[in-house]
């Protein structure tokens, strides 16, 4: 297990280094830079611009900038934001936390629902209930995330008791933990619903097809024949057997939910990485963009690592393999 983990961690470090280098190169190749607009301003002298360039290190070649960025990563700063005139980490750490709150909640909700609905649908394979769910998931699959988000916002405006943006209500400074948690849950409801609605159809279809395959397999029929109770048959025999492809999908779904959450955060004013990343792209603030990309990659890598460990732990046959 330790060797397995060490190997996966080494891959993860190489992947992160590769992604960081690629992001650096792509941002460098993109037209325009942070000082481009200042150059058009006649009130800013060339001397000032060159002083700023050397202060931010923009006149250095790419390898030097990359090495300096790696140095700042090792100091825990993750580069320097030109727009905010501050190290990147203090700026984005709260945003990272908020994005994680949203993504992890959506991940838990979408998987809980997907397993329940997929299992139910598989048990009622080819019956009318299953067909209705099939049509429902197809419709949801064909609906763009942005439309789902806007629809939910319209719904919130209509009912008036759901917050339409932000993460906390104003005036909760002295409130207790329970009130704060309730307020957070209420604010999470819409963005999580939008993310779950986007991710659910694909997950339900995977769970359903994996379960249908397993429910028809010989050992399930044998267990039925030996009188194993239905509930136990589903949870103890069928679900673990269907889990391998689903656990692999779990890692991928972290990435899907994360990219979805960046969009939903912008639409629903959730103070996460999404709005900051969008602003940093518009302002051409490269180190915030790089940090946001790196955190997205890190979430994805951790998600995949988690699913690998789960797979290793859940399937005893993997340990049999040389």
């Amino acid at each position, binding site marked *: 297990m330790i060797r397995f983990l060490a190997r996966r961690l080494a891959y993860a470090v190489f992947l992160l280094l590769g992604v960081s280098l690629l992001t650096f190169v792509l941002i460098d190749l993109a037209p325009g830079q942070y000082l481009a607009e200042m150059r058009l301003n006649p009130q800013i002298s060339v001397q000032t611009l060159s002083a700023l360039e050397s202060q931010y290190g923009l006149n250095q070649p790419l390898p030097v900038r990359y090495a300096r960025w790696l140095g700042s990563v090792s100091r825990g700063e993750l580069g320097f934001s030109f727009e905010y005139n501050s190290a990147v980490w203090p700026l984005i750490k709260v945003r990272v936390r908020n994005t994680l709150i949203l993504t992890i909640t959506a991940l838990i909700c979408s998987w809980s629902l997907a397993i329940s609905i997929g299992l139910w649908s598989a048990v009622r394979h080819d019956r009318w209930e299953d067909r209705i769910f099939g049509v429902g998931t197809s419709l949801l699959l064909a609906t763009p995330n942005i439309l789902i988000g806007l629809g939910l916002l319209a719904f919130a405006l209509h009912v008036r008791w759901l917050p339409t943006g932000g993460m906390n209500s104003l005036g909760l400074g002295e409130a207790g933990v329970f009130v704060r948690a309730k307020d957070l849950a209420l604010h999470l409801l819409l963005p999580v619903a939008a993310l779950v609605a986007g991710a659910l159809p694909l997950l339900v279809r995977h769970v359903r097809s994996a379960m249908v395959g397993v429910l028809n*397999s*010989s*050992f399930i*029929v*044998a*267990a*039925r*024949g*030996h*009188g*194993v*109770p239905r509930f*136990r048959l589903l949870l103890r*025999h069928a679900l*673990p*057997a269907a889990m391998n492809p689903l656990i692999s999908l779990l890692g991928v779904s972290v990435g899907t939910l994360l990219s979805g959450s960046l969009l939903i955060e912008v639409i629903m004013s959730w103070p996460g990485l999404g709005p900051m990343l969008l602003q940093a792209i518009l302002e051409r603030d490269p180190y915030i963009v790089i940090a946001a990309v790196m955190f997205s990659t890190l979430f994805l890598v951790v998600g995949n690592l988690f699913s690998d460990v789960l797979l290793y732990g859940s*399937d*005893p*046959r993997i340990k*049999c393999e040389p």
Partner: protein
Amino acid sequence: MQTDLASPATKTETLLYVTGLSKRYLRGGLLSRRRTQVQALHSVELTLRAGSTLALIGASGSGKSTLARCLVCLEKADTGEIWFAGKNLLTLTNHELAPFRQQIQLIFQDPAGSLNPRLNAIEVISEPLLIAGLGKRERRARALELMELVGLPAGWGSQLPCEFSGGQRRRLAIARALALEPKVLILDEALTGLDLSIQAQISNLLLELQSALSLSYLLISHDFGLVAHLADEVAVLHQGKIVEMATTQQWLQNVHSLSSEALVACFAGSGQ
């Protein structure tokens, strides 16, 4: 067709009595143009005596496995009666059926596939014992006992099915089927695909278990040698109908039906 063995007069000494059992499947989807009916079983009459072995033979697709699945209530027959211990199983609710299901156990055609690959040998055997309401320790002890009964060392209890050989998996499947102390074992081609020495070992084990535990077997097989070795009576299934039923000796000496002749000719041609 010889029907004397299945006549109501002999019902008192019979353990399992099947009459008029029919099962059909619909092929094709709800909106399919080619929606057809397949009559898998057609008014099947069958009698299994206590402590005896009845061989069910027939060509592929003749309905043998469907009949086996109907007998263990994995498939619901459309019409007919399955009499066991004074009850018609087809009229019972799922709850009422539970104790009778324990008494008729099926050993599947593909033992490797019929064992949950994630459970170890002890878990595989002890899983049906949950119904009997035994505690974890008792289940484990019973599983080890059964492993020894079928000739598997108790030390292999924590091994996964993938770590057993083909013959050992058959033994494991037999141990699991015996866990609930059934009266009837249905062996659906359970010895197919084994080499001769292992097949001989398993068939001897089955004979030993039969005399020790007073078991009755319904042996579904293509192997005439095995049928001759294990079975007391033979029933021939052809296109879902029992076309012949006789003692093994009588049947081997005096084949009546055309389908039996075809079967014998086929197996004689293949050197069995």
